[in-house]
C-alpha cells in the first residue's frame, strides 16, 4: 500500500503544501503538516514542499505482462446515422502523431452492418490498417455486441493504445471494454502525449469541473492504455482520398439471443440540439425571463447556424428542455464561439463551457462573473443587444 510520509523533523510548518492538495487532505496539527484519508497519493504536495519533508512511497508493481507484445495505436471509428463522427477523424489526426513517436502503425476499428464507406473514410484520414467486424447485430450501437466485438479484436491483435471519442456512445462503450479487459481507462482527455523516456501514454484531463488538470499514466502491467477523448479538442486532419490501407476482417462471436437490450425506437428531438458538434452555441440564462423570450436566442442562432444552449437556471425554470443545458449537471461543450446571453456565469456553468475558443458575454450586470472569462463582453440589456447583433450579422453575411 502506498503511503505519504511527512517528516516531522524537517517540516517547518510553512503550510505551502496545504493549498497544493487538490483533495483537501492536508492540514496543520501542532504546526506540522498532517495528511488524512482523502489522500489519493497524487504527489502534488511533494513538489511544492520547500524543505522536501514530504515523500511518497509507492509499491513497485512487478511487470507481469509482456508489454512488447502490445503494438499500434487504435482509433474507434464511431458512426451514427450513416456518418462517421467527426471526433473519430480528430482522433486519427492525433493518433498519427502518437504512432509516429512510437514508430508503430495507426489503425482504425469499425463495427456495423455494412461499413465499407466508413473504412474508406478512416483510411483517407490516415489509418494504415482497419479492423472490421460486420454483422446485422451491429447495425446500430448496443453495448453488448459492440463490447464483444472490441474485446475480441483487442485480445487477438493487442494494441498498445486504444482511443475513443468521449461521446454518449464512446463513454458507454469504453467503460465496458476496459473493465472486461481489466485495463486502465482515462475519461474525457484533453491532452495526449508520449513520455519520451518510458514511451507510456500521458493522458491529461480536467477534474473538479475544470478547476484542476491531472496527468495520468497506466502502470506497465496493464495494457492496452485506453482513453476517451473529448470532441473538438484536436483539429481535423486533412483528408486524402488517394491513401490506401489494409483491411482485416473478424466475425462477431455473438448471437442475437445473447444480447440483453433491444432498441425499440428513436425519438428525434423537436429541435436539433446537438451541442457536442456545434461550432457556435448561443446560450440563454436567467436574464431571458421566460420561455417565450427564448425566441430571441433562437433567432440569433438561426442566423449563425448555431445550436441553442441554456444555463441551469433557465432549464430549472422550465423555459427550455434539459437537453439544452450546458454546465456541470448538463453537457460539457467546446465550440469555437460561445455566446452567453443573460447568464451570470456560475462556477458550474463555467465548468461546461470555459474551454470554448471564444466566449462572448452579453449581460446587464457589469459585475457578473461571466465577464472575467469572456473574450469579449458587452454590458447591456440583452433584448436590445441581441437583435442588434442579429441584424448586423444578417447584413454582413447576406442572410
Amino acid at each position, binding site marked *: 500500500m502506498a503511503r505519504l510520509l511527512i517528516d516531522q523533523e524537517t517540516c517547518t510548518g510553512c503550510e505551502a503544501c496545504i493549498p497544493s492538495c487538490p483533495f483537501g487532505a492536508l492540514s496543520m496539527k501542532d504546526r506540522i503538516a498532517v495528511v488524512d484519508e482523502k489522500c489519493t497519493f497524487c504527489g502534488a504536495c511533494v513538489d511544492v514542499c520547500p524543505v522536501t519533508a514530504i515523500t511518497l512511497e509507492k509499491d513497485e508493481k512487478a511487470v507481469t505482462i509482456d508489454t512488447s507484445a502490445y503494438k499500434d495505436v487504435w482509433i474507434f471509428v464511431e458512426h451514427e446515422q450513416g456518418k462517421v463522427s467527426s471526433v473519430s477523424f480528430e482522433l486519427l489526426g492525433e493518433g498519427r502523431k502518437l504512432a509516429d513517436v512510437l514508430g508503430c502503425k495507426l489503425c482504425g476499428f469499425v463495427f456495423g452492418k455494412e461499413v465499407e464507406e466508413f473504412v474508406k473514410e478512416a483510411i483517407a484520414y490516415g489509418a494504415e490498417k482497419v479492423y472490421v467486424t460486420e454483422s446485422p447485430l451491429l447495425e446500430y450501437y448496443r453495448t453488448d455486441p459492440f463490447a464483444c466485438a472490441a474485446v475480441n479484436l483487442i485480445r487477438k491483435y493487442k494494441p498498445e493504445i486504444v482511443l475513443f471519442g468521449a461521446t454518449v456512445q464512446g463513454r458507454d462503450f469504453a467503460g465496458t471494454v476496459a*473493465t472486461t479487459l481489466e485495463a486502465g481507462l482515462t475519461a474525457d482527455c484533453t491532452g495526449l502525449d508520449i513520455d519520451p523516456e518510458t514511451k507510456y501514454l500521458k493522458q491529461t484531463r480536467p477534474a473538479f469541473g475544470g478547476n484542476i488538470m491531472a496527468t495520468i499514466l497506466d502502470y506497465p502491467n496493464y495494457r492496452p492504455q485506453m482513453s476517451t477523448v473529448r470532441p473538438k479538442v484536436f483539429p481535423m486532419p486533412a483528408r486524402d482520398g488517394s491513401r490506401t490501407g489494409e483491411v482485416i476482417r473478424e466475425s462477431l462471436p455473438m448471437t442475437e439471443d445473447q444480447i440483453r437490450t433491444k432498441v425499440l425506437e428513436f425519438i428525434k428531438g423537436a429541435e436539433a440540439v446537438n451541442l457536442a458538434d456545434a461550432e457556435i452555441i448561443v446560450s440563454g440564462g436567467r436574464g431571458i425571463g421566460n420561455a417565450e423570450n427564448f425566441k430571441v436566442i433562437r433567432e440569433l442562432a438561426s442566423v449563425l447556424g448555431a445550436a441553442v444552449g441554456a444555463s441551469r437556471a433557465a432549464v430549472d425554470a422550465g423555459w427550455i428542455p434539459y437537453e439544452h443545458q450546458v454546465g456541470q449537471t448538463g453537457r460539457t461543450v467546446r465550440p469555437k464561439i460561445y455566446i452567453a446571453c443573460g447568464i451570470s456565469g456560475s462556477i458550474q456553468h463555467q465548468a461546461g463551457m470555459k474551454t470554448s475558443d471564444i466566449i462572448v458575454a452579453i449581460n446587464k450586470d457589469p459585475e457578473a462573473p461571466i465577464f472575467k472569462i469572456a473574450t469579449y463582453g458587452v454590458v447591456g440589456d440583452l433584448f436590445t443587444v441581441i437583435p442588434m447583433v442579429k441584424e448586423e450579422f444578417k447584413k454582413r453575411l447576406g442572410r
Partner: protein
Amino acid sequence: MKIVVCVKQVPDTTDVKINPETNTLVREGVASITNPFDEFAIEEGLRTKEKYGGEVHVITMGPPQAIEVLKNALAVGCDKVYLVSDKAFAGADTLATAYAVTKTIEHIGGADLIFCGKQAIDGDTAQVGPGVATRLGIPQLTYVCKVREIHVEQKKVVVERMMENGREVVESSLPALITVVKDINEPRLPSLLGIKKAAKAQIPTLSAKDINADENRIGLKGSPTWVTKVFTPEARGGGEVLKGELTDVVPLLINKLMDSKFIK
C-alpha cells in the same frame, strides 16, 4: 424488488474557489454533498419502490465522513444504507472502485435494479456505473432520462436514454444497472421525522475484508492508472469588455467575431 443505489460524496463546487495569488483550489471550509446526479438516482429508487414494491438499499464508498450522504438517504426514506470504508481502498481508480462496489453489492445479496448517477461532479468519469454492470454481468442503461415501465414478472425494463440528437427507447432484461441524468425526476426533500430517524440510525461500515475483496484488486494496488501530475490550468485570459455606445460596440464585436474566421 430489491433496488440498490450507489452514491458518492463530493466537494460542493459551489464553495470551491480559486486563490487568485497561487491559482490553486481553495478547499478549506468546502462542504461535502451528495453528488447531484446521485440525488436523482436515490429519488428514482424511491419512486420505483413506491410503484412496484420492494426495498431501497444505498451504498457509498469513501472516508468515514461519507456517512453524511447515507444519513441524507435515510432521511428521504431509503430502507438500508451501507458505508464501505477502509484505508485499503485509498487511491482507487475507476477500475478498482467498480470492483469494490461490485463486491459490496454481492455481499448485500445482489440487486434486481441498480441506480447510479450519470457521473460524479468531482471526477466526471462516468466509468464506475458501466464497470459495476460489466463485473456483475448485467446489462447497463446509461444516460437514462425516463424509466417508462418495469415488468416485474417478466423481468424487463423499458427506459428512454438521452442521446446527442434525441432519445433512444431501450428494452432490457433485469437485473440491470441504470445511470440517470438530471431530467429524470425532481428529488424530494427529507421530512422532519426522516431527519430525526436518520440522526439516530446506526450505520453499518463494511471493510475490505467484510466484502471479501481481493487486496490486489482494490485501492492503489488494484488500479491500472495513476495520477502523475496535478496542476491548475492556465487562467483564461480575456475579460475585454467592449466600451462605448451600443451602436459602436455591436459592430466592433461583429468585426472581432468575423476576424476569427469561425463564422461561416
